[in-house]
């Protein structure tokens, strides 16, 4: 089924591509893992693409393929895009890592940008990612200030380092305010199933948490929180429209500035290979307005954000692992490599990490 869908999508893209070639516009292309209408991950990447169109205007032409599976289909999609005249291709899911590097080897004149990966086998491949955990840390600080129960509910997707990092950063942020703060974790084992995300939120609330945060893509959880009259955080985009009396803030994936910079580099002919892991300071991670909280909490949240922008890394010791053993000594900062492969909890998480 997926293959069929993809074949149709690819054909469509080829038509679009064929219609407007042989001009001096630079063609920038994207492939997305989900539909642009998911209001989450792919939606935000597409917002970035639109920003490129808006800012670079008639210097560029953009093309995207949505719902491309992380399989051999991805390789074919990339190959097609490369042949159709794309000068730069953004591959926006972790699973596109190997296809990206493979195709990059065959098309040395096309620049490839892979999100959230680490392989750069050829000089025309760059990688980029965002330090979402910086935003999670701020959320943790807010949660500990706002929660009366001293326990927050965390709806997680899959036990990969990215998600584990988020949970840990949230807990560390919360413990910086209240050392006894606890987090209950529910794994939905899906990125996207509004019904199940809502059920998970209900289960957590029934068990006494009074703050909900999530690392899944839909707005279902925050809507449930609104219904039950507790506070919650949005995810990936600003979800305030869904819960105006509920959302405390939201981590917004802001890919636009990076995309504009990289596409512009191709237009100007000075693109260079790079590995960017940008956070709040670089504008990759933006916090939605701090709402539904007293002024002192807001001030603390803003101060924390400023501290992180000033170079503070949430994973700075002393930090103990969940089992009580020492991880980071006082003042010691976790290495990027360790964080990107994180597979254990810090102390204070009320869950056993699935391996």
């Amino acid at each position, binding site marked *: *089924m997926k293959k*069929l*869908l993809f074949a149709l999508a690819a054909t469509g893209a080829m038509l679009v591509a064929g219609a407007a070639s042989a001009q001096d516009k630079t063609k920038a292309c994207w492939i997305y893992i*989900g*539909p642009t*209408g*998911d*209001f989450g991950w792919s*939606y935000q990447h597409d917002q970035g693409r639109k920003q490129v169109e808006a800012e670079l205007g008639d210097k560029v032409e953009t093309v995207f393929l949505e719902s491309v599976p992380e399989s051999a289909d991805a390789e074919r999609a990339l190959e097609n895009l490369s042949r159709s005249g794309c000068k730069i291709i953004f591959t926006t899911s972790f699973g596109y890592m190997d296809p990206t590097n493979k195709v990059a080897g065959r098309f040395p004149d096309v620049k490839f940008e892979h999100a959230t990966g680490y392989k750069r086998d050829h000089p025309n491949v760059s990688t980029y990612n965002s330090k979402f955990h910086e935003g999670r840390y701020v959320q943790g600080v807010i949660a500990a200030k706002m929660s009366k129960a001293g326990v927050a*509910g965390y709806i997680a997707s899959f*036990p990969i380092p990215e998600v584990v990092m988020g949970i840990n950063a949230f807990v560390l942020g919360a413990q910086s305010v209240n050392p006894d703060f606890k987090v*209950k*974790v*529910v*794994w*939905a*084992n*899906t990125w*996207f*199933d*509004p*019904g*199940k*995300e*809502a*059920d*998970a939120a*209900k*289960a*957590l609330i*029934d*068990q006494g*948490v009074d703050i909900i945060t999530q690392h899944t893509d*839909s*707005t*279902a959880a925050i*809507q*449930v929180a609104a219904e039950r009259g507790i506070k919650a955080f949005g995810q990936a*985009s600003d979800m305030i*429209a*869904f*819960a105006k009396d509920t959302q405390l803030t939201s981590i917004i994936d802001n890919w636009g500035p990076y995309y504009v910079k990289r596409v512009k580099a191709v237009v100007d002919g000075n693109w260079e290979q790079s590995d960017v892991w940008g956070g709040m300071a670089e504008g990759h991670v933006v916090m939605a307005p701090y709402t539904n909280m007293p002024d002192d909490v807001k001030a603390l949240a803003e101060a924390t954000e400023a501290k992180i922008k000033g170079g503070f890394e949430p994973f700075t010791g002393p930090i103990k692992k969940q089992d009580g053993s020492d991880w980071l000594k006082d003042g010691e900062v976790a290495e990027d490599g360790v964080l990107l492969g994180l597979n254990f909890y810090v102390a204070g998480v*009320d*869950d*056993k990490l*699935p*391996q």
Partner: protein
Amino acid sequence: MGMLEAILLTIATAATPLLIAAMGELVVERSGVLNLGVEGMMVMGAVTGFVVAYSTGSPWLGMIAAVLMGAAFSLLFGFLTLTLVTNQVATGLALTLLGLGLSGMMGRSFVGLPGVKMSAIYIPGLSDLPLVGKLVFGQDPIFYISIALVIGVSYFLFRTRAGLTLRSVGDSHKSAHALGIKVIAIRYAAVTFGGACAGLAGAYLSLVYVPQWVENMTAGRGWIALALVVFASWRPWRVLAGAYLFGAVTIGQLHAQALGLGIPSQLLSALPYLATILVLVLISRNRRLTMMNTPASLGQPFVPDR
């Protein structure tokens, strides 16, 4: 609201869309037609319900529009498989693909908008009773429709002449045809009913379960409904049991996780499927009864000979 009551309410919400879609598909299959397009019809219902409710402000109008859309969409399937006698499996799959794509297109400008939620009913006094109050007298109207649907379908199939006729078409369309029964007309009616139910189930998702529209928001529930019908060996009350069991284990596993019992979450996530299949297979282990309940002409094309 006590915790037990809250859990039971959550289970009812999780089970209701499965139950409604499965009940429609049960009637379709009892008439001898296999429509694998449930997911597609559901998602069309979800988007239609959302769009109409959002535009008019009335969740009821949304529900009605979703029912009509589901029925209309299933007629496409009916026309292809019953009139043009295309392959039912392939056509059903195509219907699902079409529905997923088309709904995405229809709902494009509605992504990210807060929906209109259908509110629960409230009967003064009764709805405030401890434990059973909200559960029996305080749920959303569609929940009651879903229960009525089970009673109605069960009564219709096994207690009325029309139901008997429909089952005879599903068991042997040739014999039914020889008796002068209008096989194609009955199948059209069954397919349309199935579509209407799937549409309602979809709208339940976008108007009650989680009032929002996002692409592919049914997330495979149509397929679960299909499986429930087969594993319940085409018996309405077993479908009800299956849907609630599935809902209960789904919610139960989320609670087990929140309690931090340390059971691997991947196993817990698979549990609803395992438990439902196991239980339904066990209650259907009487081979002869199962054979009796299986529509013998299921999925076979019918071309009347003149």
